[in-house]
Structures are given as structure tokens and as C-alpha cells.
């Protein structure tokens, strides 16, 4: 679905590229996670997927076609990105907010076609937000808000979903609910690309992890191949061990105390 090859990204005016030759693919039916410490280039890749930063080198293809061959609206109907932060200054009804997901499909005065309504209804059902459609967006809890944003992204109708730190401000229950939702979406055939700090959660839910370090891929593969103590210790510059979680046996990173290398 989303495939990047040897991608180099540089912010305008920056001396060094932020992403230096990264390759990975986010396939349909899988949860792919891009992880890494602060400044490793995760958010830069999201910027490129948003079309706000053009690749300096390498390719970014969507459905086998270079992203540059798409119009902005075509990109939006193929890949839906849920950016990290979003706070509506002027609250709107959840129903209207989700309907904005149909923006890339319509012109200035496009009404709600049957197709639009169908896509919105499906998105509402899949993200399980039917119970608060009539609430204003500023009367939602953090977890509800994330689900509403995912619903808007699903209403865009694409087969790929990109989420930038979707659970940063959520408590455990809401965080788990969001990850379960993403897992369900992937099982339903969606390509889910997750950019996250939550290494341990990602290790439980992702099918494929891409570990970035200083703009390069430090490790890439299944959680078991990426979650190795020596690799992670080097990337995060902190002593740690990798254990097994007692519930499902997924690898868990445990940072150690008091012997920092920084």
C-alpha cells in the first residue's frame, strides 16, 4: 500500500537531512509501526505522507504509483493521515466533523451523495462512535476524540491509515481501546501505519516494526526480531533489558535505573 524506498527528507534550509535513506512498506491487512527516539525522523516521514515535504531522494509510492503522480485530493482518498495534534478552535458537531472526511471527494458545493453518506455510516460503525454523533467536539473525552478522528480518516475512504502518536495523552483503558480498534481495522484489510513512542504496546500489536535511529533504519522486522536488547540499547542510548510480558509473551522493553550512558 505505502512503500518508501531509500527515502531522503530534508527540511528547507536544514544542513542535514532528517531522514537518510529509509525503506519500508506498510501492507494492507497489517499493522506496521515506525518507532524510534525523539528526533529519529518519525514525524518527518509523516510530514512527507501529508505532502508537506517533498522527498529529496528516493521514492514514496502509494498503491504502486509514485505519490508525486497523485493530486492532493487523490492522496487524501488513498491514504488518510491522523496528525498528532488537533484541537478545533471552534467546536463543531461530531457528525459534521466526521463528514469533513468526505472533503477530498467533493467540490465547493457538493452535497452529501449516497456514496458520501454510506462512507460516513461505515466509518462511524467501524470506529464505534455512533453514540456521540450529536455531541460537540469539545465535549469528548481524549479517547472518544481519537476515535472520532479515526472515524473521519476512515470516511476519507482510503485503504491506508497513518496515525502519528495516537495515544500520547490517553490513559491505559483508552490507549488499549485505540490499539484494539487499529488491530480490528487491519484485520479488516486496512493498511495501518503507526508512528509511536509506545514501544511495548507496539510490540504487542504491530505485525512489522521499523526502528529508526538518526534518520536511518536501525532494525526492521517482526517484533521479536526488532526488540533485541543490544539494538534497542544502542538506539535509545540507555541501559535496558528485553523481557517477556507474562500475559501473552510479547517482548517488553524494561529500561534500567541509574547507569545512564548520557
Amino acid at each position, binding site marked *: 500500500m505505502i512503500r518508501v524506498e531509500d527515502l531522503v527528507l530534508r527540511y528547507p534550509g536544514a544542513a542535514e537531512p532528517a531522514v537518510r535513506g529509509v525503506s519500508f512498506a506498510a501492507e494492507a491487512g497489517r499493522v506496521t509501526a515506525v518507532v524510534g527516539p525523539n528526533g529519529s525522523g518519525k514525524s518527518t516521514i509523516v510530514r512527507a505522507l*501529508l505532502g508537506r515535504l517533498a522527498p529529496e531522494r528516493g521514492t514514496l509510492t502509494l498503491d504502486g504509483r509514485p505519490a508525486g503522480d497523485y493530486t492532493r485530493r487523490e492522496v*487524501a482518498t488513498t491514504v488518510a493521515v491522523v496528525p498528532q*495534534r488537533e484541537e478545533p478552535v471552534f467546536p463543531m458537531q461530531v457528525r459534521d466533523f466526521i463528514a*469533513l*472526511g468526505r472533503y477530498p471527494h467533493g467540490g*465547493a458545493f457538493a452535497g452529501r451523495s449516497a456514496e458520501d453518506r454510506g462512507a460516513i455510516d461505515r466509518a462511524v460503525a467501524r470506529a464505534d462512535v455512533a453514540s456521540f454523533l450529536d455531541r460537540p467536539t469539545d465535549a469528548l473525552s481524549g479517547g472518544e476524540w481519537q476515535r472520532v478522528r479515526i472515524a473521519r480518516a476512515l470516511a476519507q475512504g482510503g485503504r491506508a491509515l497513518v496515525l502519528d502518536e495516537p495515544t500520547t495523552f490517553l490513559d491505559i483503558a483508552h490507549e488499549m481501546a485505540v490499539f484494539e480498534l487499529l488491530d480490528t481495522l487491519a484485520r479488516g484489510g486496512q493498511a495501518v501505519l503507526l508512528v509511536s513512542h509506545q514501544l511495548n504496546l507496539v510490540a504487542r500489536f504491530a505485525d512489522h516494526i521499523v526502528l529508526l535511529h538518526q534518520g536511518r533504519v536501525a532494525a526492521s522486522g517482526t517484533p521479536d526480531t526488532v526488540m533485541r536488547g543490544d539494538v534497542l540499547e544502542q538506539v535509545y542510548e540507555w541501559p535496558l533489558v528485553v523481557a517477556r510480558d507474562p500475559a501473552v509473551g510479547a517482548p517488553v522493553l524494561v529500561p534500567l535505573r541509574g547507569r545512564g550512558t548520557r
Partner: protein
Amino acid sequence: MSWRLGLALLLALLVAVTLGFAVGSVPLAPDVVWRALFGAGDASAVAIVQGLRLPRVALGVVVGAGLAASGTALQATLRNPLAEPYLLGVSGGAAVGAVLTVVFGLTAPALLPLSAFAGATLAVVLVLLVARAAGGRADPRVLLMAGVVIGAFCTAAIMVALATAPENTVRGALWWMMGSLGDAQWTSLRWIALYVALGLALLIWWGRDLDVLSLGEDAAASLGLDVERVTRRIYLSASLLAAATVAGAGLIGFVGLIVPAIARALGTRTSRGTLIASALAGGALVVAADVVARTVLRPTELPLGAVTALVGVPFFLWRLRGQR
């Protein structure tokens, strides 16, 4: 926007307009006013209503609609409920443009709004640059500070431009800088109405873009919106609206701040709804404020901009408390 709200606002506008026709040195009853408007009844009433008060009230409606719509668009684009053309220095820039053409003797009625437009556009660019240099336009307060600073600079520039002008010109210019509907004339009003109608139509046309843009730049980009291009268009349209109002009635602050807030409080949730509701309510508010300006210290007339500021500043301070 619901039909009920639309009708209610239309009614409010009608009441304000009737007051605008009725109140003055010769008070007229509402029924006399409406008959006179269509040329019936007492000849002197017809002369007063059609000749004197109609252009003034019409200018008030146009200016109010333009200011309110400009404020609505700026607030959505900048994601800042305190944004409005006067506080952002856009009106000040327009005033510089207008004064310069007058100083250089270019006073064609079609040209005045256009040179004001050039000044307004330049002011927008400057304000955004200053805000960026001072820590980013994401902070609503930094942006307003930049606007106020550029506005102060514009006032100073106008004073310099007028330094050598004859006393009469200076007095007229000062009056105009405090905002007034007193100079309403059909020749200029036609052009101003045309530019306001154009700006308003463009913004309503781009209403969905405005909704998406108000989500923030990243979210707008993820929905396939060309953020830079759309933002530029909206700034230009909002500047055109502000410039046309300045060319017609001088500097009138806070209308663009108060009216969109009222429209949203009345339940408009989409940009298109807020734009239309604001245009109606803005027209009503400016005409009503002009009635106040003409009557409280009769026979002395207050500057209209002073009246709107007396209401607007407390409102601004109240809204400021709600900001982070």
C-alpha cells in the same frame, strides 16, 4: 445555519435599518419611513429618507457585513477567535493605502478601495512576518501584538503623510480614521458594495475549504487541501473586504471580533453558516451603532469607531480571559 436563525437575523437587520431611517434631526415614524423609501408620502420625508439617510444606512449595512465576514474568515484561517481586521492591522494598512492615493490626488471612486486593498495585503504580510519572528503565529496573543504594532505604525505613517496637508483635510482625515458613515455617497458606495459582495461571495464559495483549514494545517493537508494556496486566497478575500469597508467608512474596530462570536453563540457551526449569519448581524450592528453615534450627544455626532470600540474593548478583554 438554520432557517429560523436566518430569519431572526434578517428581522434584526430590518429593525436596525428602520431605526437608521427613522432616527435623526427630523425623527420619522417607521410607517412614514417605509412609504418614503418607495417614494410615497410627504415630499420632505422622501427627500430625507432617500437622499440623506438611505446612502448612510446602506453604507452601514455593507460595511458591517464586510467587517464581520472578514473577521469570520481571519478567525477560522488563523484559528484565533480574537482575530479581526482592525486588531490585526489589516484595516490600518488599508487606511495607509487609501490616504496615499488621496494625498497623491487619485480619487477615482473605483480606485480608492483597490489602493486600500494593496495596503491591507501588505499589512497582512507584515503582520505574519512579525508574528513569525516573534515566536510563531500559532500563539494568538503574539499574532495580535504584531497586528497592533503594525496598526500603530500605519497610524504614524498616515500622520506623516498628512503633516503638510491643509487643516481641513487633516480634520476630515482624523474623523475618517475614527470611523464614520457620514461621507456616504452613491458613487463610492456602489464600488464598495461591489467589492464587499465579491469578497463575501468568494468566502462563501470557499466555505468548505475554510471549515477544513480551521482544523489546523496538518489536518487540512491530510484531507487533501492545499494549505498554502487556500490560506493565501482567504487572506486576500478578507483583506479585500476590510479594505472596501475602510475606503467607505474609515477605521471601525471590533465589529469583526464581536459579530462572528455572536453568530457562533447563536448556533452556527459551519463556516458558511457563520459567514452568512455574520454578514446579516454585522450589517445590523453597524447601522445600530451609527444610530447610537448620531443620537446620544445630539446634535453632536460621535465617531462610529469610538462607539464600536467602547463596546468592543470590554468584549475583547472578556474573550482574552478565555485564552490560554
